[in-house]
């Protein structure tokens, strides 16, 4: 589904990702772990097409297409979803208005008829239950005045509504209490289907207690330095990242 080959990315003239390689097949969940500053968020933002991140080398193929050639909105319409580590607050735009716009853009891109306000509301009300949010969430401005946990749940709500093929979650588990973590994990597990793939970018192992990954990768200094099964996450939990750093330095 996603094939990252030799990807190098810089921001403000500084190289962050160096010749990174990653293969993600449909049906798989990949956990990308690593210490702070290793390039995890850069990978997530670059895949979503953030203009501040400049691709300086390599290629990314998504469902047979050149992902890097697409503008961010087209990537989204092709089924790529990024759950932001720091969701942006948007004053004056209700969650409902935002989601209605996003839903209808997606539907138009897929050749489906647009939903009217009532149909959107019905759809949203179904999905709200999944993230344990009440209706008042819809009338509030996007992320404005939301707690950290609410912002993350809002990302999961968007994911549930937009039904992406490839979901990239950028530290969605950070700063969540155990209840919110369960809700986020549930949202991810619901998306887990043979034709979908998920990349969980995380600093901690604990979300992996709820979402079992097929592959765990350790990102360090802009490269994937180790890949293994789910047991690698437990090892990182026990030993921290220092041994990886030592190994990489050796």
């Amino acid at each position, binding site marked *: 589904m996603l094939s990252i080959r030799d990807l190098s990315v810089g921001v403000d003239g500084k190289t962050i990702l160096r010749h990174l390689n990653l293969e993600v097949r449909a049906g798989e969940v990949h956990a990308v772990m690593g210490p702070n500053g290793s390039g995890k968020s850069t990978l997530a933002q670059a895949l*979503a*097409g*953030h*203009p501040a991140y400049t691709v300086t080398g390599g290629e990314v193929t998504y469902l047979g297409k050149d992902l890097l050639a697409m*503008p*961010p*909105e087209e*990537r*989204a*319409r092709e089924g790529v*979803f*990024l759950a*932001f580590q720091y*969701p*942006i607050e*948007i*004053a*004056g*735009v209700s969650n409902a*208005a*935002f989601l209605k*716009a*996003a839903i*209808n*853009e*997606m539907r*138009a*891109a897929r050749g489906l008829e*647009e939903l009217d306000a009532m149909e959107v509301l019905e759809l949203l009300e179904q999905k709200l239950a999944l993230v344990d949010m009440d209706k008042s969430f819809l009338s509030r*401005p996007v992320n404005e005045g939301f707690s950290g946990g609410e912002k993350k749940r809002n990302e999961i709500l*968007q994911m549930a509504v*937009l039904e992406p093929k490839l979901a990239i979650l950028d530290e969605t588990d950070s700063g969540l209490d155990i209840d919110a973590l369960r809700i986020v994990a549930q949202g991810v597990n619901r998306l887990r289907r043979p034709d979908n793939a998920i990349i969980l970018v995380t600093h901690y192992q604990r979300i992996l207690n709820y979402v079992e990954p097929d592959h765990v990768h350790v990102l360090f200094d802009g490269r994937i330095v180790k890949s293994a099964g789910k047991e690698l996450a437990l090892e990182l939990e026990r030993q921290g990242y220092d041994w990886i750093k030592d190994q990489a330095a050796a």
Partner: protein
Amino acid sequence: MTTALAGTDRYLAEFEDLERRNAAGTPAWLSELRRAAMADFAERGFPTTRDEDWRYTNLAPLAATPFHTVRSVPPDPVSAERVRRASIGSAAWPRLVFVDGRYAPEHSSGPALPDGARLSSLAAAVIDDDELVARHLARHARWDADVFAALSTAFVQDGAFLYVPAEVVISAPIELVFLTTRPGVLAQPRILVVAGPHSRFTVVERHVGLGDAACFVNAVTEIAVAPGASVDHYVQQEQGASTFHLATIHADLERDSAFATCEATFGARLARTTSTVRFGGEGGRASLAGLYVTSGRQHVDHHVTVDHAVPRCTSRQLFKGVLDGSARAVFDGRVIVRPDAQKTDAAQTNKHLLLSDGVEVDSKPRLEIFADDVKCTHGAAEGQLAPEAIFYLKSKGIDELAARRLLTLGFVREVIDRVTVESIRSYLDRALEARLGPERGSKETA
């Protein structure tokens, strides 16, 4: 056909003509008032950018254009369909329609007001020698201090008169539709609203141009709010692209009364609103809000004065402007807290969203505080759409144009949220949509 003269002379000649024709039917107090106002206008003439209040708004093109008063150029007939499109209320709203400042009874409609309430053409009220009109007309908007109030008062003849007696509550908004039709016309909508003690109602002013012809609209609204009364006032301006629209709004608030005005400015090449709220009794509450969406070479100027002359009054100002093209916005927000006005609570916010590099903003708060136990805040900000917010929306599938549109609507939402009448909210949504592009389809034209 009158010959166009330069500057104020032209209007003086028309005034003399009007005096001759109307000598018989005009009450003495009104003749006196008109003459005094005309003398004042003739003496002072059009303001120039040397006047502090007009420093950023150049009226030279207005003074140089030969406009004619409505009397010398009779209005064209207007179809019922155009009136219907220009109004925003339902059939349940009482409605007066004016064409180029003149009352058009054939287009006016709506249910009767409760007993004792009066909604009529100002001319009719003058002929009936209405005591309330004599007591209030031109007693609130200071024609001796504002040259456009003077020009309006000199020619005052027709307009809307609304009186709501004590304790009367009218739930349906009262809609006053002012259509501008004739090129070269000077239309002077005049509105007098008298709210009796503890009355409560809503007035909506619609100023709509039916073409792109150059017109000069000089609107004056006076609102007298008696103790305990509550008046909601809305103004929407959609003049044609070559029109000069000048508006003066003056509200006098007595004890424990409330006044909320919310203005939306979309049209005109030059639009200036001079709003004044004066607290004359303790416990008054005033909210002044405005949104303006401008593009091309439009010039929008708001001069707001809130005069806290007495203690324990609250005022809120919220003005937000969206500027595109090479538009220019001026905001001058003056809050006066007089020595006795302790426990004043005044806040002012003025924000601009700049959508292009060619726009210009002059925003000036003026706090003149002469009391010590008061709370006064003000804030002004100018900014562009946040790139992070645009990327956030794009990353969820929304394209650039639609993202910009959503964020721009979000910027003015705070003002729309002050609107308590559903039909006005939906009108504003539609009007903004028309200017910022529809929800979808903006993409197809991209």
